[in-house]
């Protein structure tokens, strides 16, 4: 029997590439995204290259009230979640009040609300991995990530408590922290040699799903880099440009 994964925000570049790796291994997938046409193209590719069914679901992180129904329909489609990946996110450089609210809603509130729902379902089946796409931006707050970094920091903290809550039920909560990845979300900023490709990031995520860490940095060396950054004195970090 094939393993089953539900992916929220499936048209994000990182999620799409992760889904390709899973499809190639024969996973059955339920993909949730808000843009119909974009989702159709993503799903078409996965259906052709994979062997198990690929389901499409339409849902919006912005619609908080619909989240329980969304998690329910995904569960009805798959019957079981071996993996649930939440990959949606929102980013605005120099955000105004409305944009700050949107980032807070999508990156933190809706993501945590959904994580709770999925966690409950997985606790009932007594197993599975709940993976959430966060960011290194939550580790060290920078003016360039104003407010975004804060939403991810809040997300990281909440995931820690959720992990403690779900651990006794055999559910693993994985926090994924990529650096900058070349996606539409970062298209506003100049690319640098540190910018990773979505395919490489997805490969890192796939590896992380196999091993046992709670928090994974992609690429892996970012863990050491951010460890040093967090220990460094503020006056020094504030002078760094990145």
């Amino acid at each position, binding site marked *: 029997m094939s393993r089953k994964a539900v992916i929220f925000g499936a*048209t994000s*570049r990182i999620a799409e590439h992760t889904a390709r790796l899973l499809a190639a291994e024969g996973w059955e997938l339920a993909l949730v995204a808000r*843009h119909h*046409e*974009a989702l159709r*193209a*993503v799903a*078409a*590719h996965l259906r*052709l*290259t994979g062997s198990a069914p690929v389901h499409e679901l339409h849902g919006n992180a912005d619609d908080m009230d619909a989240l329980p129904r969304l998690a329910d329909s995904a569960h009805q489609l798959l019957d079981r979640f071996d993996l649930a990946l939440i990959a949606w996110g929102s980013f605005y450089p120099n955000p105004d009040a409305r944009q700050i609210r949107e980032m807070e809603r999508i990156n933190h509130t809706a993501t945590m609300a959904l994580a709770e729902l999925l966690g409950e379902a997985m606790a009932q089946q007594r197993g599975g991995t709940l993976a959430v796409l966060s960011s290194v931006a939550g580790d060290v707050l920078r003016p360039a990530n104003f407010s975004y970094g804060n939403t991810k920091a809040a997300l990281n903290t909440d995931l820690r408590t959720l992990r403690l809550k779900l651990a006794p039920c055999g559910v693993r909560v994985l926090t994924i922290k990529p650096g900058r990845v*070349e996606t*539409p979300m970062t*298209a*506003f*900023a*100049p*690319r640098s040699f540190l910018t990773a490709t979505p395919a490489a990031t997805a490969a890192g995520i796939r590896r992380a799903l196999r091993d046992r860490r709670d928090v994974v940095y992609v690429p892996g060396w970012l863990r050491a880099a951010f460890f040093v950054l967090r220990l460094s004195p503020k006056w020094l970090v504030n002078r760094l440009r990145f």
Partner: protein
Amino acid sequence: MPSPPLRQIEVVRPWNGWPAVPQKSLRVWRCADPLPQPLPGETFLPFGLGRSLSDVCLNPDGVLLRTPAMDRLLAFDETRGILRCEAGVTLRSLLEFLAPRDWFLPTTPGTSQVTVGGAIANDVHGKDHHRNGSFGCHVTRLELLRSDGRRVECSPDVESDLFRATISGLGLTGLITWAEFRLKRMPSPWLDVETVRFASLEDWRGVTQEDAAWEYTVAWLDGTRPPFPGLHIRGNFAAGGPSGHRLRCNTAVTIPCNAPGWLLQPWFVGAFNRLKLLAQPAAVKKSRQDFQNFFYPLDRLGNWSRLYGRRGYLQYQFAAPHERAPGLLQRVLETAITARQPAYLVVLKSLGPAIPAGLLSFPMPGLTAAMDFPNLGPPTLELFGRFDEMVRDAKGRLYPAKDPRMPAAMFRDGYPAWREFARHVDPAFSSGFWRRVAGHTP
């Protein structure tokens, strides 16, 4: 108020390494996205993997629309052998999908590192042109996104004028978002190959007389010494081999950086060519080859163009009618030797009578020769100028995808349909090549 998406600025070079141009670029992420808004005076040019050898893939002062993120397969009709995919899909990833299912590309150029959009926009041809025509001959439908926001689905029957202009349209008629094309059954992943030695160009013409039974043919010759000996290679797919073939990555070595400019000297290349000929003492050698090694021998060496050093190389590729081509080739190669700039790599292909798929399609019934020269700057350009005269006399033409210095007159003489083509060019699309050859007189 959303700010316009940031134009990334980076130095872009075509595959041959020259010219290098600081270029603004934007990424296109999916088929369904609208075109970005051009800033005043800005033009767009779609850019896939940049494997052309000329400024057809450059747009100095304009913006490149990078397409490799449009990499999704959309539909596959296994019974009819028809595939639909986004324009940024590479032939390499197509083969990863097709080969295990015993299908193959309708025709393929000498590298798999090109996108479908690029293959259509340059109407590329392969070793089987004499049988199967160019890539554009197999395209059944495509969608074009124009700068006025229209999405035009064209095919040989619907919007056929725009379709013919887009095939071989050098990316100027708008952004190809997806395309649909016919595939070919692959009886096995192996080819039966026959390699025939020839001592001279006349000799080679004799060898080609027996080509009728072969689907894929190509000739390599030593351009450093008359009377130009070489190897004629022809292959057919072997019947009934193992199926379910999985594609391995066939890049063995990647050249990490530019080699010093003095590395490839004429004597060095001459010695290499002699060794290559000595390696096959027999007049005819029969072998069985993996299709990747047969079609994409140079893909085994990643970034091989860096061997030519920082200034890169220039390719001169012409097509000419059967009766004039061999004489023309002889004159061109001899002129190069007299000028002490022999051609390092010479590849010949015969071109069949297929009706050109596009208005600016390069192949014509006859012969095409592609010759690589190290880029020595003005002396090489001057030499190419002398070739131009000969090609024009022989009623031949040059390949836009290979020529970053083709004079406007050569283009207009070689492609009389260019005025008709110019009517289909999207007003917001342009390229360095197009501005050079078409000027401002559409």
